[in-house]
């Protein structure tokens, strides 16, 4: 009896050990494996992500978020959208409060240390928004000596002063919305940031503003994912490719920015790659 039980116990121990180990050998965890997904989008930018009076979030990024999550296997009822600000996007993603960020989130080398980026899903370019009547600003060089507004924490003005060596008077407003107000009131002469964001403001007040449409830098809007989630990153890239192939991206761009006169690129951007 003694002899018969020992192998059985040993075998049981082995089986237990085996299953514990094979779990450790499993694929790395991914936001794809969850039952539902939480996506951070902007809530204060017309055109890209804006919360309406009814509390509903709308905009290009919102539609992109729904398209991508659907392709990743999450029907709309298992997708939760959360409004996020530029300042908190990173922390929410790192802390796991959101699984994905689609919020005019530029891919930069510095951010790549903490965030894995799918995409870009669109390459916006930095441009200028001016008052409709100021017809003599055609180019960023025409800003020499003028007052330029940028959103707080943004790098846009530095790209003009440091990047291109143009001397401008720089004003920082708490948000792009505040910049747009300052521009309308004549407190500044131009506001500068990504053309998709500018086009959103232009669409709200097409008679007040004018988009210069002479872009000078590229802003790659990425899909922020938890650092190291390569599987989700690859799946997002595939979904973005399909979004352009089936014409959805073109339609969405046309819907949100078509009437602003912005030069829209409707072919798939060059991806960053999933590290």
């Amino acid at each position, binding site marked *: 009896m003694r002899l018969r039980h020992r192998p059985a116990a*040993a075998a049981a121990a082995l089986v237990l050990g085996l299953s514990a180990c094979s779990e450790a050998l499993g694929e790395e965890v991914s936001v794809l494996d969850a039952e539902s997904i939480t996506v951070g989008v902007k809530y204060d930018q017309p055109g890209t992500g804006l919360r309406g009076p009814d509390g509903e979030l709308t905009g290009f990024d919102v539609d992109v978020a729904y398209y991508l999550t659907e392709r990743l296997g999450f029907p709309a009822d298992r997708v939760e959208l959360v409004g996020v600000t530029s300042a908190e996007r990173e922390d929410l993603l790192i802390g796991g409060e959101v699984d994905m960020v689609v919020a005019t989130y530029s891919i930069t080398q510095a951010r790549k240390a903490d965030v894995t980026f799918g995409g870009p899903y669109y390459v916006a370019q930095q441009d200028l928004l001016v008052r409709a009547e100021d017809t003599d600003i055609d180019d960023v*060089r025409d800003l020499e000596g003028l007052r330029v507004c940028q959103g707080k924490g943004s790098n846009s003005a530095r790209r003009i002063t440091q*990047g291109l060596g143009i001397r401008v008077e720089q004003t920082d407003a708490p948000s792009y919305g505040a910049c747009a107000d300052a521009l309308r009131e004549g407190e500044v002469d131009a506001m500068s940031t990504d053309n998709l964001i500018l086009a959103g403001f232009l669409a709200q007040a097409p008679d007040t503003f004018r988009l210069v449409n002479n872009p000078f*830098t590229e802003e790659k809007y990425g899909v922020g994912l938890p650092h190291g989630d390569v599987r989700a990153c690859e799946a997002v*890239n595939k979904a973005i490719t399909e979004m352009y192939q089936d014409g959805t991206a073109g339609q969405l761009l046309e819907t949100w920015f078509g009437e602003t006169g912005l030069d829209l690129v409707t*072919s798939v951007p060059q991806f960053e790659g999933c590290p």
Partner: protein
Amino acid sequence: MTGHPPGSPPRTGRRRFRLNSTPARVWALTMVCVVAVTGLFASAHTTLGQARTGLDVLGRDAGPRAMATTDLYLALADMDARMADVLLMGTGHDLGSGRADALDRFEASRRQANEALLHAASLTEGDSVEERTVQAVLDGMGSYERHASRARLLNDEAQAPPGRVDEEALEEYRRATQLMHTELLPKAFNLGLDSSAIVRQNHEEGQRSVAQGMLTVGAVGAATIVALVALQLYLRVRFRRRLNIPLLAATVGVLLLTVGVVITLELSNGYQRGAKEEGLDAAMALARAGAIATDMQADQSRFLGDPELADNYQQVYLERAQQVLFRPAENLDQYYAAVDEVADAYPELPGPDDPDDDDPGTLGYLGERAQGSLLPGQEDALAEVLETYERLHAADRDLRAAARDGDLAAAVETRMSVADSRDGTFPAYVAALDELIALHRTTFVDGIARGDAVLTPWRLGLPVCVLAVLALIALGVRPRLAEYR
């Protein structure tokens, strides 16, 4: 023998069917051992086979195919670069390595792009998303060539002098390069990323199944040893013998076999991982560093040839440069200084001075490679790459300074000497890079070969060992059973 237990006297005729007779128990335990050994053979055979397949797919199938897809981007970027050079040269047919050379190389890259596309088309069969991408690039190539050759024709007809591209030709070239940069190059780049993703998925799946197989082999091996020891102990108690030498040998054989197979699998997994990460991944990242730099240096020609968009071309030059080697810099002057610093400091790498600094370090394709562990030969080769990259930017500084001072002729001359296929700074960078890529390709091929080398002996070794163990078991048990005949 007088070793019958009191409760189970041997009764002829029925003893083989009842487990309470000694020979029946010996038989049963023997069968357990044989089944266990067979199971060990099966699990080892399967897992060794998986390891072999994994190496094969990476080394001879998905790996080389992924390498080939990076050629497409390079060939396309080179076509557009040569065309920009030809337009910038205008009537100065002898600038740099000359117009004929640039046109020959355009043609060579066009052929290479077509070949790479056909190759990609054969690979993407069955994946409709990728198939459509390849088709879109094929279509785009046709219209690119139409715009580009029309631009060349117009510029020739206008007898445009060096540096002053004809207005109509420029219009046409803008369409061509716009098409190249929005439609063709991104898709080509993404196809390369797709094939990297396929390699990664295959590789990780393979590594996982081998690791799981390794556990199974270990577990079955341990169970076999337990069964053999049980048989040994049973024989010892029942037959009052000392050690059963053949069974002991069989036990040791199973132990060695199990340990040997597990170590082999671990080794081959390690070689495969090394081949992928230090070989293939590194070679592909460097190939991308070459392809993007090809596009980047052509921005010099576009910058000079298209004054209206010069600011943009200067900006994209910086952006592409930062993809190749990233250091924080807001304009080209800062970037030149940063590149000098990297090349001088290597193998040390500049980074944040204190942890609160928001300097992310030395990154981009070259920077990330420099952070990895490199073999001595690779380190020297990378140092050479960084040095040629530094020289390339030194020439860029001269070129832009001349352009700023209004000396277009000197700027064009500098540009054409950068691109000179005989001794230009850009070909020197490419040559240094190719040397480094070749080293990583060797690492890749060697890793695969080493993995194969540790697996190969088991093709014959495994069945021979298993048969030997079975023979030893028979040898150990047969004399005991014979006592009951």
